[in-house]
């Protein structure tokens, strides 16, 4: 499955970004192959409506789950509709840390 993690940089060592729609990068990691791709968020500095736009973007990248610190209602509505599960990571670590926690099934699901 592909998992999207909001990040401050383009690497697995980058810190997890707390915000979803305004995250500078989306790291799309493949949990089966271990490969990953960094997607620049073109909506990071948008004036508004960035949540649903970012949600559409990660759906286009076939993410099946999202890991982020915070998530707005509009973005959640889009992700729910597309069947993308959302998980909260607020421990202040890196993308790798968040991914490990996800794999160990220790992250809370956004309901």
């Amino acid at each position, binding site marked *: 499955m592909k998992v999207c993690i909001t990040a401050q940089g383009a690497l697995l060592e980058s810190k997890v970004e707390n915000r979803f729609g305004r995250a500078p990068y989306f790291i799309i990691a493949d949990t089966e192959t271990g490969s990953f791709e960094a997607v620049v968020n073109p909506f990071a500095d948008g004036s*508004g*409506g*960035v949540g*649903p736009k970012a949600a*559409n973007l990660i759906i286009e990248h076939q993410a099946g789950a999202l890991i982020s610190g915070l998530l707005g209602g*509009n973005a959640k509505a889009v992700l729910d*509709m*597309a069947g993308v599960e959302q998980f909260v990571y607020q421990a202040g670590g890196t993308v790798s840390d968040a991914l490990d926690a996800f794999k160990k099934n220790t992250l809370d699901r956004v309901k």
Partner: protein
Amino acid sequence: MKLAIASGKGGTGKSMTAANLAFTLASDRLVSLVDCDVEEPNLHLFFPSKTTPRDVTLPIPVIDESVCTYCGKCGEFCRYGAISVLPKKILFFADLCHSCGGCTLLCPEHAIHEVPKRIGTLSVSTPLPGLKLVTGTLDSGSPLAVPIIHAVKLEAESDPLVILDTAPGTSCPVVEALEGCDACILVTESTPFGLHDLELAVDVTKRLGIPAAVIINRSDGKDEETLRFCEQQDLPVLLTIPFSREIAAVQSRGDLLCRAYPEWQKAFRLVFSKAESLMEAKS
């Protein structure tokens, strides 16, 4: 003539100034008082009267999913993120929509039509002979103040003398209210916060090319910094209202300074004639 009352900082006495000016001038001419602070209108408190508010609406899209092919053109076009198109589903977020109509125009299947959505109300009343009060009220939870301000201004568009009470701050609602005005009175108080926001407000009036002047309200007599700024910026100070318990008492019981103490009417008439000459000097 359109005369705006603005401030930058909130609570400096914009509405007090607008209400007293309108009350005084309405005794011998027609005055339209327009409450452009649609997120918290308060002029009706000074001028209670019966009104029948009417709805202010904006067009929003309705998507017929039996016709929609989920091509995604509308979602791609919408820069406000109000439409999300998924492979087999389309989501519309009314609160993000700015009613530009682009999605309706673009849809190749003509699957979108527009319906009105209420965002607030507008009311017109005549609380005194000679005084027309126009109040706009944005609904709670509705994010767009500007269209209501546009609607209330339109209601007084061709009136001979319009006094507009604006919202505090210097953002879109204030710019919308100020646009097209002939002069602007900035009400300030001699505090660091008052001066800071006065500087921002002056900047806005300059950018909009509207001649401005200042009223210092609640003055404790230590207005040097504000006066210095006004002198530097070539801003006439039209009136200084003292910090006084009597005036505060008039305000808090919903009365008007110029009604409770008619001697103040002379001062407000003078403010108006100075504002008029400000406008004439510009044109």
